[in-house]
């Protein structure tokens, strides 16, 4: 073994001293909250609104295909994870591929929304928003991309509204078989906990309780997270990314009490989604009525919605064109981060382009 080169040693000491300085600076900024992450960076316009729900159309001069894609977000978290920061944006990647991107955001439920049910979102808001997206884009139909619970809502909407012009449906990490979902949700499922015990003064399940429900699934996740943060605290770029992601994880939204009761009875306790027949309003919605092409995207390392919960979808649909794809990522990594950029997004774009070849001239 050769003795260490003195110049390397000096260089190493100099680098570590510099990093310690940067660590101290960024550590103080983080601890005092002096740096606020900039999220939701892609410019957009509100093109439709009802209640707290808003339909956004992202600005782009690269639109080159129809139909537009409408992303239907989950009801319990913030949609800006899909447009987290420049260079880490699911939305921007779709725009770069020439897709006209819309996003249906549900907003933050308050006391007024506490009686909202799934029908409010699936029967009232979604069909109107999808029609508006087609109208604004000058298209006859839309492609729908539903994420997490938004995937289940998209299925219910497409199955329950034959008149809604949906050409292709993509569902990502959609919870279908609720028996496969683990964690505290089991207490609700077995009837050991009641929704009423979780509601706050507004009649909704508070965002804190939603966050606690998710975070207990990985009780030691913070250990490695903070170790990596400490190691790379000198790196401004890493700290920015860390802050954006960390603030999103804590930034959940309240779940309307009406939806929570319905979720518990219909999906958790009766697990009706795996039968493909879900009561909605005064009718039964059948997944077999989904006849458009369907792409079911699952995350292999998903600790919230494991692939076993989504894979049963295939046998329930009436579509002849069904594809499923498993991405080696987690629930969040499926839509944000390196795995999303390298694997998820290219697969989705390829699948959509294969089925959406109408060239756009009027966009």
């Amino acid at each position, binding site marked *: 073994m050769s003795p260490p080169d003195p110049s390397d040693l000096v260089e190493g000491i100099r680098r570590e001293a510099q990093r310690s300085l940067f660590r101290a600076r960024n550590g103080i900024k983080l601890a005092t909250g002096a740096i606020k992450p900039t999220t939701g960076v892609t410019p957009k316009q509100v093109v439709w609104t*009802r*209640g707290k729900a808003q339909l956004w159309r992202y600005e782009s001069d690269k639109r080159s295909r129809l139909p537009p894609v409408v992303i239907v977000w989950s009801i319990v978290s913030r949609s800006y994870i899909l447009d987290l920061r420049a260079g880490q944006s699911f939305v921007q990647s779709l725009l770069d591929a020439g897709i006209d991107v819309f996003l249906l955001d549900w907003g933050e439920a*308050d*006391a*007024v*929304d*506490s*009686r909202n049910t799934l029908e409010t979102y699936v029967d*009232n808001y979604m069909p109107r928003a999808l029609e508006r997206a087609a109208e604004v884009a000058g298209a006859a139909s839309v492609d729908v991309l539903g994420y997490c619970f938004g995937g289940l809502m998209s299925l219910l909407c497409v199955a329950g509204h034959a008149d809604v012009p949906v050409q292709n449906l993509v569902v990502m990490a959609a919870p279908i078989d609720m028996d496969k979902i*683990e*964690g*505290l949700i*089991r*207490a609700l499922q*077995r009837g*050991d*906990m009641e929704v*009423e*015990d*979780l509601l706050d*003064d*507004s*009649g909704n399940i508070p965002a804190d309780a939603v966050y606690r429900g998710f975070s*207990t*699934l*990985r*009780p*030691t996740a913070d*250990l*490695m997270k903070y*170790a990596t943060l*400490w*190691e790379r605290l000198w790196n401004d770029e890493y700290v920015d990314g860390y802050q954006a992601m960390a603030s999103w994880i804590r930034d959940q939204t309240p779940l309307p009490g009406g939806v929570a009761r319905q979720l518990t009875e219909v999906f958790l306790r009766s697990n009706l989604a795996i039968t493909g027949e879900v009561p909605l309003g005064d009718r039964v919605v059948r997944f077999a009525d989904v006849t458009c092409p369907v792409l079911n995207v699952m995350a292999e390392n998903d600790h919230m919605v494991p692939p076993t919960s989504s894979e049963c979808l295939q046998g329930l649909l009436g579509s002849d064109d069904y594809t499923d794809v498993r991405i080696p990522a987690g629930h969040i990594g499926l839509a944000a981060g390196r795995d999303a950029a390298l694997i998820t997004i290219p697969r989705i774009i390829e699948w959509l382009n294969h089925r959406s070849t109408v060239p756009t001239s009027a966009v």
Partner: protein
Amino acid sequence: MSQSKKSQKSLWRPLVEAIDKRITPPANALVRTNVFADAVAIGTRYEARLRRRVEAQTSWVLHQYNLPSATDVRRMRAQLAALEARLRDMDERLEDSIQENRRAKSSGPAGTAAAEQK
């Protein structure tokens, strides 16, 4: 792993990784057990009961002095929210019917007759 990445790794990192490797699987397994779910359920239930009991006692004291309690304020807020929700529903119905009329008008006399019938 490249040499540069190796040199970026702190000396303490393997220790943290070893601890993580040791404690994460049992911790993940624990939070997925029925016992854990039951414990949280019991905690949540008792917290809710305790909160209700404290509120009832506080309300009783406040009501002795003719003062509104948190429960009264909550009831009023719930009523206001219900009223606002009804207004919102009416507003949405009105908006839908205006839209329908507009569509009917733009699709000609046959459409107008259909919209009027509705």
